[in-house]
């Protein structure tokens, strides 16, 4: 099940020393300062995009832990995001308390993730991919079967209080999203540095050896799924806050595929890769859309990004299964050896 880090043994000492130097707390503080500064400089639309990157970062960071460090592939994280988004929407329309709503969204998605994770821990490779793909496809069916609660294809609108003071909405959204994203990154960074991270990698690389070393294989796999599901729930809640509405159309199968693609292209197994992936998820469609607008073609809109993502994904997989971030790492290594 090793899709990543074939050079793990070679680079381990390097990674460790880099990791020691860059304390996650420091990175997060610098990141927060950078984001807050940016939100004052950028125009509203760019702030909205910045907020979207933050929301995507939550789910790509979680997926990096699941796929990159634990070797489980999930195509169902779009559905988990939908779970978080719908939970927040239902809560907001009843109680209108954002923070408890987000916490609840994370908890509900964690519970759903635990159920899927329990099944997933017994499955490998294509079987797991097929099961999670089915989860992603089933979302519109659930919303139209229980349309009394979820209002079918139209979805729900999300009531939101206006931001405090005179801050523009987009800036407020960027702050919320990045606060959540940086918190997620911080928690994950400490999680994967410790025993949990070692267990994840041990199970990914050799299940039998991990079992012999006293690592609970099934337990580790379920935990990895639960952690990444919680991240997806958080991201879903943030998407509900960003769009101020939720509908099944916002969480299509393509979203789940995009997420997998983003972390593969960003480079599996590193949180920095998750950041690159989140950035690409916002930047590429935006570039593609401006090209489509210039060309004046309706058919290009959206589809150009789709094609582009697909081509990049295939090329990256054929050239370097570790993704772009691993390419960068390798190049740096070569220089230091020379």
């Amino acid at each position, binding site marked *: 099940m090793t899709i990543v880090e074939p050079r793990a043994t070679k680079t381990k000492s390097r990674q460790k020393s880099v990791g020691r130097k860059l304390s996650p707390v420091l990175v997060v503080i610098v990141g927060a300062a950078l984001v807050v500064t940016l939100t004052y400089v950028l125009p509203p639309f760019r702030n909205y995009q910045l907020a979207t990157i933050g929301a995507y970062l939550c789910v790509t960071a979680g997926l990096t832990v699941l796929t990159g460090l634990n070797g489980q592939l999930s195509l169902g994280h779009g559905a988990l995001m939908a779970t978080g988004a719908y939970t927040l929407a239902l809560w907001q329309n009843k109680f209108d308390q954002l923070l408890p709503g987000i916490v609840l969204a994370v908890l509900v998605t964690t519970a759903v993730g635990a159920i899927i994770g329990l099944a997933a821990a017994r*499955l490998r490779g294509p079987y797991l991919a097929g099961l999670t793909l089915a989860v992603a*496809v089933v979302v519109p069916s659930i919303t139209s*079967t229980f349309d009394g609660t979820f209002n079918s294809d139209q979805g729900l609108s999300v009531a939101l209080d206006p931001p405090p003071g005179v801050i523009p909405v987009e800036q407020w959204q960027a702050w919320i999203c990045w606060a959540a994203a940086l918190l997620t990154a911080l928690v994950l960074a400490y999680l994967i540095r410790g025993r949990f991270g070692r267990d994840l990698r041990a199970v990914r690389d050799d299940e039998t050896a991990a079992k012999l070393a006293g690592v609970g294989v099934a337990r580790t796999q379920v935990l990895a799924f639960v952690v990444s599901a919680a991240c997806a729930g958080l991201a879903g809640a943030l998407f509900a806050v960003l769009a101020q509405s939720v509908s099944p159309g916002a969480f299509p199968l393509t979203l789940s595929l995009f997420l997998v*693609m983003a972390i593969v292209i960003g480079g599996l197994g590193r949180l920095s890769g998750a950041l690159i992936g989140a950035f690409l998820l916002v930047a590429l469609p935006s570039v593609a859309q401006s090209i489509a607008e210039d060309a004046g073609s309706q058919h290009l809109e959206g*589809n150009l990004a789709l*094609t*582009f993502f*697909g081509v990049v*994904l295939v090329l990256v*997989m054929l050239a370097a299964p570790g993704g772009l971030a691993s390419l960068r790492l390798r190049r740096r290594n070569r220089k230091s050896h020379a």
Partner: protein
Amino acid sequence: MDRFLYLTFDGLSRGAVYAAFALALVLIWRAARIVNFAQGAMAVATAYAGYSVTSATGSYWLGFAVAIVGGLVLGAVVERVVMRFVDHSSPLNGVVVALGLVLIIQGVLGMIYGNEFRPAEAPFSRDAFQIGGVALLSRYDLFVFAAVGAVVVLLTLLFTRTSTGLRMRAAAFAPDVSRLLGVPVGGMLTLGWALAAAVGSLAGMLVIPTELGLHPNAMDLLFISAFTAAVLGGLDSPVGAVVGGLVVGLVLTYVSGYFGANVAPMAVLILLVVVLLGRPDGLFSKARARTA
């Protein structure tokens, strides 16, 4: 009771299509140990090509032939250009590359044809015959049974009675030994992909007139159903794929007939979970399913 009979025949017809599609998945799995997640998208692409020819020439059968031949070509191209170069040390790599192909195919189709449903007419009437006052089968259902039955028979003959089929099985079973004995293993792999994609295209052509029509995402649900069918029968077993397809078709038709079409995708998910947790090696597996 009438309704039950009607649903049974409808389910068998639907199941025949799932069986064909599951058979395509099993063919590639046996040849290359890859579950081709791009199968649905590839079938849609060839169906679009087929219907373009049909609307240009007015002949359904010319379009049908183009779709099947297009499947052969597309399958061979995908294997030669992309899949051959995937690192197979982890099964995830093949899955991820197939997903990349899905994005490419759906994106290109959307760019050419747009993302709205296009009507796709059936070559035969879909009105059911009345037998003893009960509507049972339509001409189209008979066509579906005939087409899928022909594919099953032809594939069985190919794999059990011809030397090409023997070479294909040898190349999949023991590539190194086969190569030493002069079997062109790479060529057999390409042939396997081409055949599987053509069978997938046939399933696509058969199912699209019975659903909402042509759409880049038209096969997403069909893929899940066929995957469930293939897993139900055991990914290694062609007989299992056919039986699994019929079972899944029946279950889905009963569920949508009695509880509404919205519930059907959930039924697929539940069925898949039950199969994967209860009998992950499939009903017809002889050995333990390979985990890698």
